[in-house]
């Protein structure tokens, strides 16, 4: 059930400055946030859309409040100090962005890491949000959460961009955990330029420990997207002593190289910012550790193209 704010006015500083009514049946996306100008989400300057909801529950998640999808339990409604949340009818938690000051108190009490203060936005409204920025952009990257959970509306968004004369130059990328089965990727492919897939671990045990799931589906997605020519990059989150052991890196490289040694590989440094308490058992990743992994993977025949989240001066 996607109760929050459906049908309610959508407006706010990030997305819209005026209310919007959602036509019945119109494709909508549950949007947790937007960055209008980003240099770290793919090539060039990009508009980045964070979608709500993820089917993994990774210990190291940097955006944990995008994991859950609200089930309208109502627990957060009384804690909102600004009256932005209400229960207009049973099973519906409504959110009004006008009084909301983004204090995020609501997400701290949510038992399932959901966020009631997200926007449910029709695809055509997002297209108009992107339009005035178009000439500053190389493209749009959709991340999250796990964007492919909303694959249907996502395909509608990308299709609308590709069909628009002023927006057709924008490349479309998704940042994904790779669990969507190939059959459900297929309708997205004609309007998708590339997917950046996280392979959190090559060994199934470690993957299970890190994400709560095995990696069979992820590996299948990587093979599938690569053969379809839509694999933009594979990403490895470097957690020192966990994902950078010799054995793990060898297995990771062996898998990726078997698919295609030319796949661009990007390393992500693990940071504490945004993570939950249980992630703090691990240290933040040092630049040296990232360099070591990069050298190792290159020696193992992979094409390392850079890293994200490394602080060097």
């Amino acid at each position, binding site marked *: 059930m996607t109760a929050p704010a459906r049908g309610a006015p959508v407006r706010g500083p990030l997305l819209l400055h005026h209310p919007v009514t959602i036509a019945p049946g119109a494709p909508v996306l549950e949007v947790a946030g937007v960055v209008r100008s980003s240099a770290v989400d793919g090539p060039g*300057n990009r508009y980045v859309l964070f979608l709500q909801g993820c089917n993994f529950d990774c210990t190291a998640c940097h955006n944990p409040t995008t994991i859950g999808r609200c089930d309208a339990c109502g627990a957060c409604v009384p804690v909102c100090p600004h009256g932005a949340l209400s229960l207009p009818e049973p099973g519906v938690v409504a959110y009004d962005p006008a009084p909301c000051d983004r204090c995020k108190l609501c997400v701290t009490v949510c038992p399932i890491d959901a966020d009631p203060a997200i926007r449910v936005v029709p695809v055509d409204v997002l297209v108009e949000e992107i339009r005035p920025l178009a000439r500053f952009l*190389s493209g749009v990257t959709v991340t999250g959460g796990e964007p492919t959970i909303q694959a249907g509306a996502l395909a509608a968004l990308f299709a609308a961009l590709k069909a628009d004369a002023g927006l057709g130059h924008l490349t479309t990328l998704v940042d994904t955990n790779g669990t969507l089965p190939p059959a459900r990727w297929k309708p997205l492919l004609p309007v998708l330029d590339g997917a950046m897939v996280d392979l959190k671990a090559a060994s199934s045990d470690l993957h299970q420990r890190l994400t709560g799931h095995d990696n069979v589906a992820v590996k299948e997605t990587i093979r599938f997207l690569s053969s379809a020519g839509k694999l933009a990059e594979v990403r490895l989150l470097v957690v020192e002593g966990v994902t950078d052991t010799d054995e793990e890196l060898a297995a990771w490289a062996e898998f990726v190289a078997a698919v295609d040694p030319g796949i661009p590989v990007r390393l992500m440094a693990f940071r504490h910012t945004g993570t939950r308490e249980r992630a703090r058992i691990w240290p933040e990743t040092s630049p040296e550790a990232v360099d070591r992994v990069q050298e190792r993977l290159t020696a193992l025949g992979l094409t390392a193209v850079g890293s994200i989240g490394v602080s060097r001066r």
Partner: protein
Amino acid sequence: MSSSFQDQVSAVVTAPKLTYRQRLQQLALLAEGALPYPKLSTAADGAMESGLVSDLREGPAPYRPRYLLPDYSVALRNGSEFLELEPATDLEDAVALLEILYHHVPSITTYPVYFGDLDALLMPYWDESWTPERLDRVVTRLWRFLDRTIPDAFAHANIGPIDNPVARSVLRVDRARAQVVPNLTLKWDPDTSTEALLLAAAEGIAAVNKPHIANDPLIRRDFPEGYGVVSCYNTLPLGGGSHTLTRLNLKVSGERHHGSIERYLDETLPAHIELTFEIIEARVRYLVEEARFYEHSFLVREGLLHPERFTAMFGIYGTAELVNGLFGDKRYGKDAEAAELTRRVIDVIASRVERREMPHCRNGRATLHAQSGIGEDVGVTAGARVPIGEDPELVDHILTVAPHHHRFASGISDIFALESSVRANPAAIADVARGAFAHGMREITFNVEGCDLVRVTGYMVRLSDIERLRAEGSRINSTVLGADSVENWGLLDRVPRVISTEFDPRLGALIR
């Protein structure tokens, strides 16, 4: 001689941290400063006294134009009778000739502000036998020459808009050497420049915050005879320049006004504009009619400069403070009403500058310039910029300022701070520049967090130099200005967004 004059001279002569050449410059300033100002009305005198209008310490008796943009190609082709030089025979000879010519080009700083469009100057001497490595060696030696003999970061080289081997070599060498001098501008034309050239420039910006990028088709509309970008984002006619830059402080203008916004636009502002015109005219007449620079310069006689291509720059600054002050509750950079009033203020000034006859000027007119400020301008925002610390998000910021850009024929600047993450993705810089030009920006400059070389208004300063400055003195004059700005504007606290200074010839930090 008053004893205070003697004291000032003596302070310069005995200033241990000034080089010989710096002392000489200061002595010239003191001597010129001893002369009376050209005759002005009492009201115009008062305007200068009160800081409403300022000549940026150009001095009371101008004896050379503020900015000169010689067409060096004339001397490369014809040689020079005055300097007893033959025409250039090959690329290396052309570079050697340019080095000689630079020595003979004055400006307000005493050093040249324009080194020419280097690729257009040198490409006629290039052929397929020039490998990139060999070309880089020649450009590297030129870069070393410029930085070591012309210690002034207002001095500017231009390249583009056509992609060519010399432009590429300049970008490679400039990035590798990370020097303060020369400042560098890429002229960019979406129709004739290549994407690869823009990306090469973006890689330079990611590494050394250079080049500055100019919207070639837009500027060319104002200067069909050709133009150069010099000093702090000034766009001026090639083979000409600007006699003077005199600026109106709009913050002070607004503070002097009592009454409605409409009355400000109809009466107060036009009166202040007229006072500025009077001062500009007095300075231009002195330079042309009394000092008679243009009659005795070989650069004019031999066709590198044309007196009729000199304009006079009408500078404004403090637009944001004016608009915010007139409203009280609306802020420029945030509210649409403030943006609209800014547009109207600029329209009043620009249309008067476009109509007012100015003697000895190109087309008989001065040109409007958004002035970047000088080190001592505390609390007044440069040109038509959004105040530091109130900058909206990048794209909103560009869309706020871009609509004004086409009104400023002799240049306008906005500096955009970028996070260090763009260093791994220079294509993002190219995207923003392309978007800015599509929305009518005249010129764009970035300051990327984490570079040692940073932009203070239009010129470059090495942060590591500033740390050494007070202890040892600096080889480069503008470092001193940068040091003032760093202190007055908190530049080091806020590297991603840089400030406005133009220049302050006092070398104050070293004499004090």
